[in-house]
């Protein structure tokens, strides 16, 4: 417990409009006072410290900033934080629980689906949306689903394998359940 509320931001300069925005991030409701121009990626990274969402291109091309917006992949570098008001946002930090990795995370490790790691959170979030929609995708379906996410290190072959590994594991888990 602390009696020092040092996280309260300073008041905005005169004439700068702000808006109170509440979004559900990884299952927790978060309220912040933001300038309408603040990008969702910046809100996640700066206001909430969720730095797993990376900024790459600022033009919606690279997909490093991909989060799930009400379950669908969205590039948070070209969305405003205020657009998320009243919506659900999932980031890479929400994939694993305290004791267990998500099968997609395991898949990326097992199949060497990452090198520098910068594209990885976006790749995994896009893959999560795919596998929720299509639990048994073909290689082509995986490649198509990931085509909005760039990777400069791996050549994608192992990323595709990682997603297929996860799909397999998730189907097995479903059968057991």
């Amino acid at each position: 417990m602390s009696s020092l509320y040092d996280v309260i931001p300073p008041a905005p300069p005169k004439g700068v409009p702000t808006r109170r925005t509440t979004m559900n991030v990884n299952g927790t409701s978060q309220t912040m006072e933001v300038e309408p121009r603040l990008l969702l990626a910046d809100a996640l990274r700066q206001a909430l410290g969720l730095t797993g969402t990376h900024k790459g291109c600022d033009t919606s091309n690279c997909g490093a900033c991909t989060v799930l917006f009400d379950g669908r992949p969205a590039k948070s570098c070209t969305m405003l934080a205020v657009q998320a008001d009243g919506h659900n946002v999932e980031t890479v930090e929400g994939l694993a629980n305290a004791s267990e990795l998500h099968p997609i995370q395991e898949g990326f490790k097992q199949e060497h689906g990452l090198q520098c790691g910068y594209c990885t959170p976006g790749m995994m979030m896009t893959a999560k949306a795919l596998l929720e929609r299509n639990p048994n995708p073909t290689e082509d379906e995986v490649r198509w689903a990931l085509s909005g996410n760039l990777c400069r290190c791996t050549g994608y072959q192992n990323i595709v394998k990682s997603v297929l590994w996860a799909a397999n594991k998730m189907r097995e888990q479903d059968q057991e359940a």
Partner: protein
Amino acid sequence: MAPLDELKIGGMGASRRRVEDNRFIRGKGNYVDDIVLPAMLHMQILRSPVAHAKIKSIDTSAAWEVPGVRLVLTGETMAARNLAWMPTLSYDTQAVLATDKVRFQGQEVAAVIADDPYIAQDACDKIVVEYEQLPAIVNPIQAQKADAPLIRDDKENQATNKIFDWEIGDKTATDQAFADADVVSKLDLHYPRSHPSPLENCGSIADYDRATGKLTVYMTSQAPHIVRAAVAMVAELPEHMVRIVSPDLGGGFGNKVPIYPGYVVSILASILTERPVKWIESNSENLISTGFGRDVYLEGELALRKDGKILGMRMKTISDHGAFYADAQPTKFKIGLMHSTFACYDIPTAHLVSEGFYTNKAPGGVAYRCSFRVTEAMFFQERMVHAAANDLGMDQAEFRKVNLVGDDMFPYRTAFGFLTDSGQYQKCLDVGLKAIGYDTFKQEQEEARKRGKLLGIGISTMTEPLGAGNSREYDIIGIKMFDSAELRVHMTGKALLRTGAKSQGQGHETTWSQIVAHELGIPADDIVVEEGDTDSAPFGMGTYASRSTPVAGAAVAMVSRKIRAKARKIAAHLLEVSEEDIEWELGRFYVRGNEERGVTIQDCALAAYSNIPDGLEPGLENTAYYDPPNLTWPFAAYLCKVEVDAESGVWDVLNFVAVDDCGVRINPMIVEGQVMGGLTEAYAMANMQYITFDEEGNCIGANYMDYLLPTAWETPGFELHEVVTPCPHHPIGAKGVGECATVAGPAAFVNAVMSAIEHTGVRNVDMPLMPNRVYEALKTGKDVSGMPPVLSD
């Protein structure tokens, strides 16, 4: 006692899953932009919108008025502190913030430091700069013209736009070889500008502490120790008061070797504001202003005997370095290791002439996933070989076999003086030919043509010099190219390893431990690896040019052996025998003739802190500096089969076979990952990565909407094969591999497309082979140049 199973402890040859993944898959990587320091300010840079102009005036008054702005810097404020210019890694100078002129589009002109990056950007937009535009030079041909404007009028004794003349080889003998030739085959081409484009852009956080006098800079650097030395010199700070920390890097590919103006400006800003200052560039800023690769005009010819034997090689390169000669090159070699061209072929004599020029483009020539211009050298080599085989009417594979250096010819001295030391070139090629079905291809191609389909097959074979030094020949700004490793074994047998290299995705945290496991028998999971912090890591030249495993990796093996030598003394003490009576097996010393009587490396570690023999220093740690006796020479044979659509010029890869011999593989999984990643960049350069300049020097393609990087959808699959010829001088027999695929790959794709369309008479299409270029070549039967256009009179 059963001996340790090396694979089980994660030693050499284990496809050990990566340690660094544990944080990356949780989104817990620690990239520069993830670091937040108390009271941190944010910096944005104002850049020139034009390629060449005099600066008439800069008015920053409106920027200062923006609430939240703390500091505005221009060339003038930098100059007052002698920081308007900085030295480059190639003995040139580069403007930090422009004072007199701007010399490329995107050049740094001013900077704003504010409470947050949005405010800093608002204020940048309020700075008014008046420019007087000058004619722009966009290629080195234009730069040579007598009436070309002088770009570097800031330099004394610089009367023209030429940077250097350089040559190597034996001109007389080579001229004679051409006089004796039955056939002379020629080729001219342009290796286009390409941008390495790591997904993470460049940035820094400078944190100057006036109380202690210490400057800490967190930054995107592949070579933090070189930066420390440079910062100490440029900023005139004592080197022990400079700490460079390179945290996780989101890729590098050579783009994060140079020292950029933004780093320097953030340092001065922190000194002036006495607060940490973060600078993170945008993707467009990265693409428009930071280290480009390539941009070389390559022309040359082969002197040939009718039976296919190459008698001599002649080559000229004209390179475009942009406005500042800022690429890192070993001092002796102005055009990098271009003279490694044709190293895999047995050629009696060769001659190379090189010229370098300034243009009004961003600094270029960084080793984009290559060992100093080797990519251009090998691309020219394999395109030239392809053209020569055609000119002789010989089969592509047969022509290579006639000329490849044979297994029994090592060590082999190349025509330019390199010493290649090992390889099985023919075998690698044979493995590739078999895998791709080369024997039946001709028939396949003819049948396809009858059905209106254009099939082609391309071969690229090469050996390249990886792992500079040795220090006799290789240095960067005088600092010799060796590397280091420090190993501390704790009393419980766990260990901490640090090196002067810096991973950007190569997986050093995983593979370095494997080398220690191999040498000492300490399980890889018991070893933690740290890199990138100059206050803790031993000095090293960093990671680029595929030099980590050849140099730092060797240092890891050598420091482990030093530890083992000391542990042996401790073991003798514990076993109460003399050292000569001790034998080693993985992880354990035992008494010769009595295998049951032994102590583990962990026992020795504990004793090093608790039961030290008289006369021996306590503890179990050491450092090794490794100066390699030679470069390492991996070999690659890449074969590609394509289908070209005659109606659109679009080409698809049907099959790609890669045979790599990089010596002993520490972690096969990681090696394969490197090869596939490199092949994808090769595919990208051959197919779509197009970033060029218009007549006025505007950069066309400084964003990922225009500069196309391949996605999972279009990237082909790759079939990988391995051949292992251990490196004779490397302590664990390894050779570099990270760049083989980017270096040899492009020619395989281009040769394949050419093989599909050269029946029209076309001899060369410059990269990238975009559909419009291939279509044009098909329709006209003429070569297609990729040279940027210039203003006509």
